[in-house]
């Protein structure tokens, strides 16, 4: 730092006669700053509100659920006891965990394998394949669930883990993301490994993959969260209560006549824990510039 601020600050702090009388004068910079803070604060409130209500509702008795007060009149842990004692919750939690984990692993593996191939190899039809993969991004899930369903029906995949997972085992988005990240891996790295006698699969796995760890971490978070919270397709493809995923199961808490919001919110609150863990594990890998460290100084 230069010494400029040192000479400037005393100047400003120096009490002058009108500074003592009037409020400190705000320059345009300060105003902009205040507006920025207000906007950020509002944005923050907006983001936190649903979570706050989720936790608040999970602590309420059923009769209080439709009260909008944030602090319950009589907070209770009864809902947590109920949900955690209900065997179905563990069943769904486990289903979701297995499905989200397997899907994440599958995406990390296949998306990066395809992305790498599209990025680093020249072969006829490469661009066509890439465009074909990308174009699937433009088809909304709502349009796909019917063909998926018919297909699952014919293959006998309904009401099974495989049936829930198969549409998401590879994603066009993941392929695209990984392809873009592999662009940042210099060919020199791969060629050096080729000269050192690694086969193409080893080059991908041992050299290229470690260099795109930040992208893999980001992809893992995306895929895990996406599958952990997936609702529409699991709802359609599952029939038996034992095969429900957590979101599907939670949405059915209560009886036919009434939705038990306090229980749903309790389940939701508990179900955020794995997503938090996944995020905490992977976010530390998201450090940019890892790739560049081995290159020119």
């Amino acid at each position, binding site marked *: 730092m230069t010494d400029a601020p040192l000479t400037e600050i005393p100047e400003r702090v120096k009490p002058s006669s009108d500074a003592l009388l009037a409020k400190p004068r705000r320059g345009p910079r300060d105003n902009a700053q205040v507006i920025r803070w207000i906007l950020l604060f509002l944005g923050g409130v907006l983001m936190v509100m649903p979570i706050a209500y989720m936790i608040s509702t999970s602590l309420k008795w059923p009769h209080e659920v439709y009260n909008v007060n944030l602090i319950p009149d009589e907070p209770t842990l009864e809902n947590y006891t109920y949900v955690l004692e209900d065997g179905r919750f563990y069943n769904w939690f486990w289903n979701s965990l297995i499905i989200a984990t397997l899907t994440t692993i599958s995406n990390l593996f296949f998306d990066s394998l395809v992305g790498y191939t599209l990025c680093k190899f020249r072969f006829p039809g490469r661009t066509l394949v890439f465009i074909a993969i990308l174009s699937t991004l433009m088809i909304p899930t709502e349009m796909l669930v019917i063909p998926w369903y018919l297909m699952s029906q014919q293959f006998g995949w309904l009401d099974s883990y495989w049936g829930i997972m198969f549409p998401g085992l590879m994603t066009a988005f993941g392929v695209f993301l990984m392809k873009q990240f592999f662009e940042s891996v210099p060919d020199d790295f791969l060629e*050096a490994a*080729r*000269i*050192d*006698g690694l086969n193409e699969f080893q080059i991908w796995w041992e050299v290229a993959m470690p260099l795109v*760890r930040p992208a893999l971490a980001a992809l893992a978070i995306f895929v895990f969260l996406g599958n952990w919270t997936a609702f529409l397709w699991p709802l359609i493809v599952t029939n038996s209560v034992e095969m429900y995923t957590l979101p599907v199961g939670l949405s059915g808490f209560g009886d036919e006549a009434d939705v038990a919001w306090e229980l749903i919110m309790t389940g939701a609150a508990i179900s955020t824990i794995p997503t938090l863990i996944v995020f905490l594990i992977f976010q530390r890998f998201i450090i940019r510039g*890892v790739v560049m*460290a*081995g290159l*020119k100084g």
Partner: protein
Amino acid sequence: MAELALRSLTKAYGQTEVLHGIDLEVADGEFVVLVGPSGCGKSTTLRLIAGLEDTTSGAIEIGGRDVARLEPAARDIAMVFQNYAIYPHMTVRKNIGFGLRASKLPRADKKERIAEVAEILGMTPLLDRKPSQLSGGQRQRVAIGRAMVRDPAVFLFDEPLSNLDAQLRTQMRLEIKKLHQRVGTTIVFVTHDQVEAMTLADRIVIMKDGHIRQVGTPSEVYRNPADTFVARFIGAPSMNLIEGRADGARVALASGGEIALARGGGDVLLGVRPDDLHPVEGPALIEGRVTVQEPLGPETLIYVETSAGEVIAKADGRVPPAVGSTVRLGAAPEDIHLFDRQSGLALA
């Protein structure tokens, strides 16, 4: 016996041929430098030797075997890249050991090799560091180490020093030269820096537009350039070329002067290096007005505007001719090169 031989090597990308028949023999233990302007095909030649690109036609022999159809790893070569290409996620030890990744040596032998190489390169204390904790020169040393552990028949270097700053480059240049003297492995080294080429090479290969223009020791290519391209490419500042006409006894310059030279005939280019062109009292080759002075210490370069264009000459650093003054410049006959004006080829 030649350790490495290239025979009528060509390479085309699609319809564009970028190498038009390269012939080169490199002896065992020789340090050969490929040099030439950007895009002349130096890297392509090296990548063909390494097997990173397929040849279009021609043969590549290493240690007497035709390797043109072999995988890079089977060719008994090691390559050092401009960008080092050392892996940021591995320690120095792992990086150096990576060169042995595919080798069948027992574990203990590998360890010993790594230690030995680290010792030669002075990297022993740094073995457990990650590349991000190394300086540019140290990273380059790791890359060299990774190539060395494999003890290949031929080392290939593609502009390994061009990412280093000037001072470090000079230092690493010297280290590479010492390393070569110590391990004695055949080296093919690519650079576009003619000073690097001159200082390192046993033999220099000068390339242009996918052709080899001349192969020779540094002093051969400096003293007897095969054509005007080599003449101007090697040596800094570049050789002056002045148009003239030779009649077998003397050369008459377009700018007026003439010099007795029993060489050549017809339209020629007379070449004289700035190092050999000095202000003279007596009969001069050419004369003109000094426009710029560049003091180098013991000597001063002077840029002289003549009727045949600008020439560069070297004057005594203590009493250089003043800017604006007229100087007469001369050179010893043995320092004068003659080239055919049409073909650019040297005339004996």
